[in-house]
């Protein structure tokens, strides 16, 4: 909501400065967004008089002026056509910053003649649009006076109006609030009742009183819509960003912003029959002033003639029956519409207007007849014509529920005592009807306020006028000792992030939505969760996995020349559209090499085992079962079928890891291998002894361990983990560790065979092993591995 200072002063009698007004507005809840004050840019610009005018010897349009600045007389070269001796205008000295150009004025030679400064146009000073010549002030204007004092400069103030303060969508509402805050007096608004000289030939019939409790109309004949809108009105409309269009449109726009009172003007000659206010029929079409066509339903309110809906009530007029330049007879509408009806239709049709913004918040229900009178007078004053009697359908009424404000509640709610007298005065100043008893104020809201429903609403009114900054700040009382506040999952999320960062990965955060064209590869059999109204097509689906956005990030990094990447995210992914159908994943990708190539030869390409290690580390970080889980080879289809796996506990998948499927990467136009992992935090069971902080007793043997190497030959398709597991279970008492130290395929082995060599660690318990005992243990391992995997000692 914008307004100018002079406009405000139309309603508010005040001597306050712009700064004071701005500060007060923000303090009482009308937050000032911007102040545009052209006067601030006019320092150094003064009035000056042209003493003499001569033609420039080398030009047919330039003149050489002698300009009296009040202090001295200087030579100025000027190209304006309206220069003449004795003209008093605005002089810019050399060095002044010209607002329009944003540059400082220098001493210049113009076609060989020196010019010391400049005489300015309105546009150059950004105080108006006129650039046809220099400013010409009245002949009796004093010389050497600052321009800001002489020019009619009207600062523009923009405030942000919250939805509860509908009346402040009119300048008068803002003036009233400022007056209540003690910044002046609200001037009375004199509205004369206009009797009318004839009965309106167009009658009004309201069929739906709920949607339109009051409708007033007046026929005005013989108006001149070609009449010039008065300059003051044009200036104010222009200042707040509204383009003057025609006298009738300007008047309705002006009153909308002046009194927060929407109006509509029909060209009465175009209306066929009487006006009916009714709900539209399903499928009824309407072409609005914005030249767009809308299909209405039976919950949309139409102002109709015999030919159909001509105005979408309270939202926007129709194209075909509005006023144009040659309009002579008009029907003026000033009505009240149901806010819910307006909001619903506006929302449904996605149609915004100044009128809708006011109606869906609150329009003073007692302002229909007075608004009609006010607008009629303005039309008669500007466009001439003759007014009919007013047509009123329905009745104006406003019955606000009295609301109590208890002083005890006030104190216990705010945390500060404010005297009853003061509270009552504040409410009265805001227009409330106040009655008092001991400790209780009963207030009835004025008709322009639709937001007062409960005691807290009154508390807010008092508090904002007292000033929030005058309420004390009291620290919260807390328990003597803080307690842990994170749930297990919250803690796990934090631990996983730190673990993965410790491992050298960068945490990133990406949007929860992604591109369905990429997401489709990652849905793991679920239906897509598409967004009805995506902001752009590339963000149209709630992501089924974190990987798509990570991959898009990788692609962008690669395009910038950063080809080695290790990034992860811990965030929700979505497997259904119902609230709660989401899970927390810790997912990452590894691209390129572990580091840039360097002299030590440390750098190597990331491989599947880096992804597996990260997944296991993440599981370990949240105390998950990193010793026990199974590794299976059934990762989803977006992984390389032969280079990926799942980490699980039975049916419960803790993580997937592996190389991503080349076809998926190709679809993303990524030309390098990508290793990925996805850990599902909710699936990781809490440790069985979760609560216990004490560790198991550590048994340390004094006897030396014995390590023995064994090489097996088995079928290629035997998972190596089966050999390890078999070896470990051969003798749980004595075997403490089994490690694979060599994997070999090729020469000396059959095509379908491979060799796996393991180191088995034996820990004697009471005394060192004899050779025979060791032999027995080794045979147990060989037997067990052979039985479980078919592997034979090589």
């Amino acid at each position, binding site marked *: 909501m914008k307004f100018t200072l002079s406009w405000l002063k139309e309603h508010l009698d005040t001597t306050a400065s712009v700064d004071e007004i701005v500060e007060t507005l923000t303090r009482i*809840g009308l*937050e000032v967004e911007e102040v545009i004050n052209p006067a601030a840019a006019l320092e150094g610009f003064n009035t000056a008089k042209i003493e003499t005018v001569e033609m420039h010897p080398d030009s047919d349009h330039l003149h050489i002026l002698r300009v009296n600045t009040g202090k001295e007389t200087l030579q100025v070269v000027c190209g304006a056509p309206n220069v003449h001796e004795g003209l008093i205008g605005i002089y810019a000295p050399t060095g002044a910053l010209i607002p329009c150009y944003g540059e400082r004025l220098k001493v210049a030679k113009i076609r060989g003649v020196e010019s010391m400064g400049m005489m300015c146009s309105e546009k150059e000073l950004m105080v108006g649009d006129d650039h046809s010549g220099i400013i010409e002030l009245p002949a009796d204007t004093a010389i050497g006076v600052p321009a800001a004092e002489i020019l009619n400069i009207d600062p523009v103030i923009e405030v942000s109006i*919250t939805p509860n303060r509908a009346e402040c969508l009119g300048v008068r509402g803002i003036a009233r609030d400022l007056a209540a805050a003690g910044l002046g007096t609200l001037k009375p608004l004199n509205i004369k009742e206009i009797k009318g000289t004839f009965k309106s030939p167009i009658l009004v019939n309201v069929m739906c009183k709920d949607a339109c409790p009051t409708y007033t109309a007046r026929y005005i004949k013989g108006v001149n819509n070609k009449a010039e809108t008065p300059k003051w009105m044009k200036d104010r409309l222009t200042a707040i960003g509204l383009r003057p269009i025609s006298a009738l449109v300007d008047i309705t726009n002006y009153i909308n912003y002046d009194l927060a009172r929407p109006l509509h003007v029909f060209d009465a000659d175009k209306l066929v029959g009487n006006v009916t206010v009714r709900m539209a029929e399903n499928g009824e079409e309407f072409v609005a002033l914005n030249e767009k066509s809308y299909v209405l339903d039976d919950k949309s309110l139409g102002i109709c003639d015999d030919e159909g809906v001509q105005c979408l009530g309270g939202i926007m007029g129709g194209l075909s029956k509005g006023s144009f330049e040659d309009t002579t007879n008009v029907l003026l509408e000033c009505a009240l519409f149901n*806010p*819910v009806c307006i*909001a*619903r239709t506006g*929302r449904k049709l996605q149609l915004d207007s100044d009128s809708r913004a006011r109606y869906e*918040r609150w329009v003073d229900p007692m302002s229909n007849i007075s608004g009609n009178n006010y607008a009629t007078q303005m039309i008669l004053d500007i466009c001439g014509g003759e007014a009919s009697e007013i047509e009123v359908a329905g009745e104006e009424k406003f019955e606000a529920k009295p609301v109590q404000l208890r002083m005890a509640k006030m104190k216990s*709610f*705010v*945390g500060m005592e404010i005297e009853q007298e003061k509270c009552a005065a504040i409410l009265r100043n805001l227009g409330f009807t106040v009655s008092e008893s001991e400790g209780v104020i009963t207030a009835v809201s004025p008709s322009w306020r639709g937001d007062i429903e*409960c005691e807290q*609403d009154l508390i*807010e009114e008092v508090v*904002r006028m007292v000033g*929030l900054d005058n*309420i004390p*700040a*009291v*620290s*919260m009382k*807390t328990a003597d000792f*803080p*307690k*842990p*506040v*994170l*749930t297990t999952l*919250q803690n796990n999320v934090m631990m996983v992030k730190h673990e993965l960062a410790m491992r*050298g*990965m*960068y*945490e*990133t*955060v*990406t*949007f*929860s*939505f992604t591109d369905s064209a990429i997401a489709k590869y990652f849905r793991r059999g679920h239906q897509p969760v*598409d*967004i*009805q*109204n*995506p*902001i752009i097509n590339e963000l149209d689906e*709630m992501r089924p996995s974190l990987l798509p956005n990570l991959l898009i990030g990788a692609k962008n*990094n690669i395009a*910038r020349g*950063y080809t080695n990447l*290790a*990034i992860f995210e811990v965030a929700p992914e979505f497997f259904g*559209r*119902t*609230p709660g*159908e989401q899970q927390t994943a810790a997912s990452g990708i590894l691209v390129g090499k572990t*580091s840039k190539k360097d*002299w*030590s030869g*440390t750098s190597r390409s990331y491989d599947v085992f880096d992804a597996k290690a990260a997944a296991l580390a993440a599981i370990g970080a949240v105390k998950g079962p990193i010793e026990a889980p199974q590794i299976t080879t059934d990762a989803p289809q977006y992984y390389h079928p032969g280079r990926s796996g799942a980490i699980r506990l039975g049916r419960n998948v803790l993580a997937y890891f592996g190389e991503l499927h080349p076809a998926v990467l190709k679809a993303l136009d990524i030309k390098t291998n990508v290793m990925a992992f996805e850990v599902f935090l909710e699936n990781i069971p809490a440790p069985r002894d979760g609560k216990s902080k004490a560790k198991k007793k550590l048994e340390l043997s004094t006897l030396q361990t014995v390590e023995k190497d064994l090489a097996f030959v088995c079928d290629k398709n035997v998972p190596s983990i089966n050999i390890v597991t078999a070896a470990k279970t051969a003798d749980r008492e004595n075997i403490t560790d089994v490690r694979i130290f060599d994997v070999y395929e090729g020469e000396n082995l059959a095509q379908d065979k491979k060799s796996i060599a393991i180191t088995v660690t034996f820990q004697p318990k009471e005394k060192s092993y004899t050779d025979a005992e060791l032999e027995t243990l080794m045979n147990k391992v060989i037997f067990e591995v052979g039985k479980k995997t078919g592997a034979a000692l090589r």
Partner: protein
Amino acid sequence: MSDIEIIKTEIEAQIASAQEIKALDDVRVGALGKKGRITELLKTLGGMPVEERIEFGKKINVIKAELEAKIAAKKQELETKLLNEKLKSEVIDVTLPCRPEVQGRIHPVSKVYEELVAIFAEMGFEVAEGPDIEDQFHNFNALNTPPNHPARQMQDTFYINNDVSKEFDLDNAYVVRTQTSSVQIRTMEKKQPPIRIIAPGRTYRSDYDATHTPMFHQIEGLVVDKTTTLAHLKGCLYDVMKAFFEVDELPVRFRPSYFPFTEPSAEMDIGCLKTKTELKIGAGTDWLEILGCGMVHPNVLRSCGIAPEEYQGFAFGMGMDRLAMLKYGIPDLRTFFESDVRWLKNYGFTALDFSSMTSGLSNNGGLAR
């Protein structure tokens, strides 16, 4: 000079001229070995008369000891020389860089989350959560924002069709939550007062420019009990902001505002100093909007089955990304979500930069390499 003296002089010369340990060893064997010249002389002692034997014996033993010492000294000398030559040959270029190491990063939003949790934990706030996809009851209606409330226009909402088998129905559609305030409702549905929670999380609005992204992070706070006042709201938020920004002095300003779910409502500004190149939080000439807050609206309590005559409290919400931008001088919100590794490295935090009220909220990535 006696023979023995001559032998001694000769051996001494041999010792002196030995250039290698092997040569010196040969000298030692030649003099003191089983068949060495000195050993041979000692062997002659047996055939000598007693007196002569004693005298000659003494003499020759002295010479033997002298030679042994000289050989030892020479050996030391040669070994040192050898070692020095070896060291000389072992020179490496220590100006070469170290082997590559990796050092990861924690995203600034995670860092700010941890900092705020640390602060609020001191005041007894627990951390609550809720789903990102919400029904309109939790995101709007229960927050005193019925379907046609003008405040719904304040937020551009993303919708999700609640039933794919039917045409999209705006009134029953799910939304991607526009505010973490929905977690207030979910908390109050489950728990009776006293309640002290914060709810950090992702929020979504259809808006995209330098200061708006369609997804951002909010942290919501809710206190409901029998005694918490507007004055506590001011005190709590002042304490939190001062702790968060880790400054000694923080001017604050509260302005009346409007949110459907609080009454009275306010916005909080903090003091700052804006220059062309930086923004300094603390004493200064400008104000910066930092959060919205207010006393919980009685309708909100009522919709969760909490009696507003008995209970009252406050709620607040602030942008975590915005807090990160202000505290850590990050200029553009959009960059938070772009996964640019240069950005992550520069603005991210090391894994060891833990947040605690007692050891400090942030080391500002002091260990970063």
